[in-house]
């Protein structure tokens, strides 16, 4: 699809700015009413979802050229999808996020990529990960855990760690914890180790649709070859790519895709995971975009006029994963959940997405700090999440602040409650 294909969507924008706000019924205070990090940080209308549509029309009609300045506007967006959720409440005929994606594809097609993104994509090309770390070290995180290597033996569940959890040493405990929890629960778990590759999602988000297609193709064949019945990942970014982006580029993995929190919740329900250790902690839960609204399964609709599109095909964010993590939290003895104001479909983004972490670290940090403030306002002792990118953003943000707020992945907290806090 090209931007042109979305011209009708764009021309439908009423410039109501609803996409700047938390869905109305959920606005609870003056401070936590906004939902779009980009407009909140950069203020000119073009930085909002609706503003991006208008920018698209300007480009389509050659009112403006795709210059560096324009690319800068396009890339100063975390692609969190919150605009899409708020707009879709009212509109059937506008796919804001798809237009935002198209703008990025246009940047790549026209050579208007950002250097940081080019480096990332180059790194992916060379080492199959977004950091340019040696491919050979990808499986190191699992050392001594005794997990099956699916390249060598069959396993029922393929555990995909993702780039960040594979290489971010600071988050080792998360990935080892997640894998151990599953295997301790008797799950037949395998990993691809050094052969695991990036999902490609981050390349797609910065405009390299072709890269995603390649990775998706490759990934699909590996999954098929592995013979597993389920693909489980502790990384929400990867989860979002599998659930939303792969189907969008026409790739189905053919197996059940689960985020680890979904799987753990299921296992808890079956009594296979029983947290018993009291962890007296007041926590708040941050919904990662890519597990929530951007993890909503994509369904292609073939019709012409989106005004007639049945709601099952609308990406409204409501089919993301919101309840499973909360259900897990509710089962952890002595853990108390206090919600922030912006949660679920309308959660505020940590700021890491859309290539912002790579190209605009200051914006990433600003967004993360906004969220930290919101978390602190609940009186929580810890902010719990289920995505390593969010965790990294918050941890880094807090490093520069003198606050008593722990950042935890839900699996880390669960591990504590299982009395099996793993070594990092």
């Amino acid at each position: 699809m090209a931007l042109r294909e979305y011209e009708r969507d764009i021309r439908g924008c009423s410039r109501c700015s609803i996409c700047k706000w938390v869905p109305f019924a959920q606005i609870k205070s003056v401070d936590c009413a906004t939902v779009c990090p980009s407009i909140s940080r950069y203020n000119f209308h073009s930085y909002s979802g609706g503003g991006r549509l208008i920018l698209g029309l300007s480009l389509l009609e050659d009112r403006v050229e795709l210059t560096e300045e324009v690319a800068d506007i396009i890339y100063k967006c975390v692609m969190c999808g919150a605009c899409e959720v708020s707009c879709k409440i009212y509109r059937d005929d506008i796919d804001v996020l798809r237009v935002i994606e198209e703008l990025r594809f246009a940047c790549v097609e026209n050579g208007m990529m950002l250097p940081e993104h080019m480096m990332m994509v180059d790194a992916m090309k060379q080492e199959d990960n977004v950091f340019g770390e040696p491919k050979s070290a990808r499986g190191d995180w699992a050392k001594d855990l005794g997990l099956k290597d699916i390249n060598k033996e069959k396993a029922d569940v393929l555990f995909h760690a993702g780039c960040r959890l594979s290489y971010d040493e600071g988050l080792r405990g998360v990935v080892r914890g997640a894998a151990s929890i599953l295997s301790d629960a008797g799950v037949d778990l395998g990993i691809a180790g050094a052969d695991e590759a990036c999902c490609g999602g981050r390349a797609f988000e910065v405009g390299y649709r072709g890269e995603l297609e390649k990775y998706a193709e490759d990934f699909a064949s590996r999954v098929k070859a592995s013979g597993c019945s389920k693909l489980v990942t502790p990384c929400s970014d990867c989860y979002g790519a599998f659930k939303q982006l792969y189907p969008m580029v026409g790739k189905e993995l053919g197996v059940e895709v689960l985020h680890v929190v979904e799987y753990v919740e299921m296992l808890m329900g079956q009594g296979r995971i029983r947290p018993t250790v009291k962890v007296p902690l007041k926590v708040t839960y941050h919904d990662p975009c890519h597990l929530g609204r951007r993890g909503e399964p994509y369904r292609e609709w073939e019709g012409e006029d989106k005004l007639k599109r049945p709601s099952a095909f609308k990406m409204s964010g409501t089919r993301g994963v919101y309840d499973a993590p909360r259900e897990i939290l509710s089962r952890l003895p002595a853990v108390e959940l206090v919600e922030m104001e912006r949660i679920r479909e309308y959660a505020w983004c940590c700021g890491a997405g859309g290539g912002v972490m790579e190209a605009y670290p200051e914006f990433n940090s600003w967004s993360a700090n906004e969220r930290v403030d919101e978390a602190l306002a609940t009186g929580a002792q810890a902010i719990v999440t289920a995505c390593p990118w969010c965790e990294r953003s918050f941890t880094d943000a807090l490093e520069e602040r003198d606050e008593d707020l722990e950042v935890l992945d839900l699996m880390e907290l669960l591990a504590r409650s299982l009395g099996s806090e793993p070594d990092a």
Partner: protein
Amino acid sequence: MLDDAVYREFEEVVGPDNISREPAILDGYTYQIVFNPTPSPWLNRPAAVALPCSTEEVQGIVKVCNRHHVRFKAHSTGWGVFNAPGYEDMIILDLRRMNRILQIDENNMFALVEPYITCNQLQAEAMKKGLNCHIIGAGPNTSVLASCTSVGGVGWTGISMGYNCRNVLGVEWVLPTGEVVRLGSPGSGDGWFSGDGPGPSLRGIMRGLFGAMGGLGVFTRVAVKLFNWPGPKRIDARGLMFDIKAEVPENIKLYILLFPDMQRFLDATYDLGDAEIGWIHSRNPAGMLFTFLFPGLMRETAGRPAMRSAMESIKHMVSFGIAASSPGELAYQEKVVREVIARNDGVLIDMGKLPQFESFMLFGLMRSTLSAFVFRAGGNFASSLVGEETTDSGAPQVDLGVRIKQEYIDKGALIDDMADTVWGSIYENNLFAHYESLMTFDSRDPRQQEWIKVDEEVVDELIDRKWGIGIGLSGAGTVVHKKFGPHMCNYDKWQRRIKKALDPEGLSDPIGYTEPGD
């Protein structure tokens, strides 16, 4: 184009990050489709956009404008054609960085806000103090200040919370020539509890039935009346819209009232007004709700006689709400509304018996969240007539609006909404009523570009028949004044004079107001 040196002067006022002349940014302030009578979404592209964060910065910009004869226009949230620059070489002041609630005075029931506080934000904070604000029908995403000072003021809760023009207390105003005036008590440093005096009230210069739409300078603060809110500090809801589940407080009741004909709707409205009960009163014909809430279904069925006759028979439909402060008051108001309905042969549906729908309607009415559904059927909407006098006087205007609209529906220029989509609401326990005939269409469809003609026809006929003040045609501006002025005591002459007195150079964008003159 702005001269570089002038641009630099603006930059000095707000800092380089808060001003732009990047065409891509400027286009964000050029595009408007709502109430835009032209086929193109693009209006004039301004020369620059600035983001002042304080009254001083607004004043600084206006002074630079005066030094260099640059036109300017303020906007708060910037929705609708009223925000479009009237000229190309001007500067837009996007006030979104002025976004504070400066005060909520619990005892004296008012709030002091900056331009970029939306109705939704104010309501959420006011409720925490047992207060509520009138939200205009446009929706909770609009600026409180804008509807108080610069635009309209009608909404669902007018029966109990009035019309926003009349809800204004003190105002801070950067005049077109750059002086800062605080109307009323704050002008003398006495707090924000009054906007009038000493002596004559300059609120009457600031705005009338409509505001000056950016044509009389920039309003930077407004004290707005708040009203009693007997409900909880916060209504927690699950869900986003249709799926909303919320516990509707016991002292809040929502009803749908249906009347067999217009006369009985009118009689009941007068009775409810005289009885001084009600928190929400809004005429929402069934066709309108169907079109907005179930556009697909409507599209499929609108042509069917059975559907049409079903809609026709329930078109005199009113959403009515009670928010009572005590069990005694609740019982009294309920008893009255039931009696009024009985005496006027109406049907009363207690939404408490339909909890899912009740939750949805609670936010819809209380927070005006239903409004943006007008875009759902076709992507755009407009509204043609505004009868703003007695409740009775609106009735023939409703028929007129519906008849003219039907002609356009018949030729495919508007979406079929069963023809009666006349939204109406009453103000101050029925001091006056507001009706507007809504129309939905798809402005992307070349056949559906004619809403303005409906507007014009309705207005012309209203004037011919001497029936009322059909302020359609986007409400204001020179075109409208030319039409209405001669029939309404040449009020436009006074506006030109006001403009001349306040803005002799015509720098504050005159397009939505008027040029200076004699």
